[in-house]
């Protein structure tokens, strides 16, 4: 169990590191020393979501950060975090965050605390519904 967890964590770290790239499930499965099917199943059992969903949240977390710390356009941010379609990005963002990228940007800037913790705590949850958002 512990060895499998550690290998899966290594694969999850690889998703975090290469979030701009398409999900390379075969490669990640090899990092975890599992078959493709076993990797997806074990990842979901261990972390509570599929690798694809984890990648989506990682990308959206980076997008949230860029929207609130830069003046880059929504399209730019969409491409920067690894989406190739603005429509898919906006739809995914809204589904996960509960509001559109533009509306989210209106919430203002974030404080300069260590980025890794910001990422960890601002990453939108996959384990519940998008929260109700009040006006910014």
């Amino acid at each position, binding site marked *: *169990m*512990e*060895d499998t*967890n*550690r290998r*899966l*964590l*290594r694969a*999850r*770290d690889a998703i*975090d*590191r290469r979030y701009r790239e398409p999900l390379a499930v075969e490669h990640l499965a090899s990092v975890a020393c599992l078959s493709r099917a076993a990797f997806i199943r074990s990842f979901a059992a*261990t*972390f509570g979501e599929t690798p694809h969903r984890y990648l989506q949240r990682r990308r959206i977390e980076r997008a949230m950060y860029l929207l609130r710390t830069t003046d880059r356009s929504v399209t730019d941010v969409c491409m920067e975090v690894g989406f190739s379609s603005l429509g898919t990005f906006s739809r995914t963002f809204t589904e996960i965050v509960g509001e559109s990228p533009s509306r989210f940007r209106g919430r203002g800037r974030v404080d*300069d605390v*260590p*980025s*890794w913790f910001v990422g960890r705590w601002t990453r939108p949850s996959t384990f519940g519904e998008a929260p109700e958002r009040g006006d910014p």
Partner: protein
Amino acid sequence: MYNAISRSQVYVLDQDQALYFYVDTLGLEVATDADLGFMRWLTVRVPGDPVREILLERPGPPAMDEGTATQVRELLTKGACAGSLFLTTDDARATFETLRSRGVDITDEPAERPYGIDFGIRDPFGNHIRIGQMFEVPA
């Protein structure tokens, strides 16, 4: 009221493996390695910093029952209860290259942040370690 933070603790699964990683790979030094009978008190520190030590503790009886220790080990290895250590360096990019050449697990590569340049690694057990070259804060 206080003078310093003198000791922090992270869980490790194997203290010999932890010793090798934190000293030979990461470049810290042993502060204390003592068999207390009921536990092995193993601490490391940054060379030149005698104040702050990190206790590398193995979860298990009698500090906790075996069932709890199993839970801790499971959470540790999937990164969910892993401790976080923050180390500083004069040159984050050079340190990164050194650690990469030693085969350390990288979580993210050096990137410039508002407060400095930092990157992340994991120890063999799942603990997250951040290493930063911090910018000077204007007085």
